[in-house]
């Protein structure tokens, strides 16, 4: 099959969309990023520039690589930008109605043989694809943030996903230098399903007064060699997002282990959403740097 990747359309220029765009552009592929309005484009473009600059400061890349990446990302406000593309990815928020609408739009402009990728951590690929004329070309890819660094992506097969499309998604993952984890469609796939009960449990531990949030994180981080403790992890993902995922998994499966911890609910209602609002279980600066990291959480250099 003669199918090469030169141009990829991404719908949604938020944190995830930008991170995926950068990873793709790093492979020399052109990205067409679609946002809702000129204002959104402007805001997202500024965020992207800041993120890329931070990556240079963090030694993740160099000034030259940054310029090369920027030169391969084009912003747009119309679905027409997907017309000449070899693959399209939607990466808007976890809202089934919204995602369905976008998939229909993409289904109309992209040649029928080309894959439509849904980036979701909990939603049903089959359900999202149902309204497409060509549901067999819809495949799920659950990218994990930051996409430039995580080595893994879950490639998710819906009920109607064609074999060839699934194989292309796997090849695409490899092209991005990622390890594809093949999954059949089930709420939460592997990563989200396994991590959420642990994070939820950590919140219960805090709510029950068993241990302070900082100690819960330290115990898990130092004890099991996690890069982040479960509570800081949730803070960084966004507590509203974690809450949505839990609720969705709870509804879909009926399993009580996914019932969102009341403390999480309370924090979300108070608008304490984690790193992005400066406060969640911990406190963060405007650059998302944690401000209250205890000394015991610093590396031992003995």
């Amino acid at each position, binding site marked *: 099959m003669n199918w*090469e990747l*030169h141009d990829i359309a991404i719908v949604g220029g938020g944190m995830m969309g930008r991170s995926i765009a950068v990873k793709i552009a790093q492979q*020399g592929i052109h990205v067409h990023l679609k946002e809702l309005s000129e204002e959104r484009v402007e805001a997202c473009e500024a965020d992207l520039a800041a993120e890329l600059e931070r990556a240079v400061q*963090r*030694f*993740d*890349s*160099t000034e030259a690589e940054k310029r090369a990446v920027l030169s391969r990302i084009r912003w747009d406000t119309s679905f027409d930008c997907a017309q000449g593309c070899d693959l399209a990815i939607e990466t808007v928020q976890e809202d089934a109605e919204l995602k369905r609408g976008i998939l229909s739009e993409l289904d109309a402009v992209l040649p029928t043989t080309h894959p439509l990728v849904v980036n979701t951590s909990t939603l049903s690929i089959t359900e999202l694809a149902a309204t497409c004329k060509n549901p067999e070309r819809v495949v799920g890819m659950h990218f994990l943030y930051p996409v430039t*660094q995580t080595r893994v992506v879950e490639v998710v097969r819906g009920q109607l996903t064609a074999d060839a499309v699934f194989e292309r998604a796997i090849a695409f993952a490899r092209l991005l230098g990622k390890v594809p984890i093949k999954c059949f469609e089930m709420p939460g796939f592997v990563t989200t399903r396994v991590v959420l009960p642990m994070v939820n449990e950590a919140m219960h531990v805090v709510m029950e007064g068993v241990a302070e949030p900082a100690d819960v994180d330290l115990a898990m981080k130092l004890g099991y060699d996690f890069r982040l403790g479960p509570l800081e992890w949730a803070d960084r993902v966004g507590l509203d997002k974690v809450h949505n995922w839990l609720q969705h998994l709870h509804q879909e499966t009926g399993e009580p282990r996914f019932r969102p911890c009341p403390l999480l609910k309370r924090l979300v209602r108070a608008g304490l959403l984690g790193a992005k609002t400066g406060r969640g279980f911990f406190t963060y600066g405007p650059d998302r740097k944690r401000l209250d990291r205890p000394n015991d959480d*610093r*590396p*031992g*250099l003995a």
Partner: protein
Amino acid sequence: MKILVLNSGSSSVKFQVIDTDLERMEAHRDQTLAVGSLEKIGLSDSRLVLRVPGREPHQAYREVLEHRAAIDWALALLTDPVIGVLSSVAEIGAVGHRVVHGGEAFASSVRFDAEVVAKIEECSVLAPLHNPPNLRGYHAAHAALPDVPHIAVFDTAFHQTMPAHAFLYGIPFQFYTRHHLRRYGFHGTSHRYVTFRACQVLGWQREDKRLISVHLGNGCSMAAVDHGKSVDTTMGFTPLEGLLMGTRCGDMDPAVVPWLMAIEELTLHQVNTMLNKHSGLQGVSGVSSDMREVLAARAKGYTRADVAFRMFCYRIRKYIGAYAAAMGGVDAVLFAGGIGENSPEVRAAATEGLEFMGLRLDPGRNGAIVGTEGEISVPDSAVKLLVVPTNEELTIARDVIRVLHGVMPTFEPPEMVS
């Protein structure tokens, strides 16, 4: 014989056509017919530049997705009746390929065959960014020119003569036996050419002399060449060790790496990028990785540019002393590479204060020799100082001739005492 010289990178192919044979090598009358480079392979706007002496450079763009298409395009341009220099590809008598890493498997340039390819593949673990594209270039060129000999010329081969006490690191020996972890050194083709050419110019036999070759380009390295053999070199297991470079740190306490990783919470990727791409002249000066810009900033009184310049030159001076000691003396110090050939300031600072060991720079000559070949020491300096513009492509072309005539020397390692 007209030889196609190829240097295949992951997204670029540099090529030259050089006309040479045994007599011309001896007389230094080899002729470079064309110099080309093809960049951005794998993208839709790949660019090819072809330079033919005496003509305007030719530039062209098209989509080139892999090495085979790149080689085909290069050959098409080289044989173009207007732009080209060859009447047909049949004029190409042989192809010389630059291969970065020959590991311990190659101590000489060799003709490609299945076994050679397999061994180069084995060495890929030592140079994962370079050997695979080198091989892709070979496979593409072999497909395009199946009937001529293809010769592999290794950056590491010349340094294979180093003794174990120079190439081993002071870490548990099992890592050497298990992973071939040791100093290999790079720029071997350049150090070889420069020491060969200097002796040709001076009327010396390389086998009688102790030479220090200083290659200062994008990457920088020095080699101690004792009676024709490389006995030590500053680059190590990778091209990161030794001198300060444009963006590479060179020598450093290895304990810095785990310490920084812990305290700054850097990943392996980040620390590797930091040492290779954010350090050196760039990292210290904060101005540029380009010595010319560092010199300009220094002239304006910028302190960090000044200290970067001093670090750069000081480390060269230190190694000149070290290599003179390693060889029990030195007869000539040779400067090559972009900075070595073009910066009198660097050459002056790098040899300053070495009069005690017989190095006496002639400031007038040093200032006058920029980008050309020539002596820069005073006439009665006990140790000669020379600028020798390097020519790695020419060495590759000459090695093709040497291999085909069976006169290619082997840089045999000395016996290791068990």
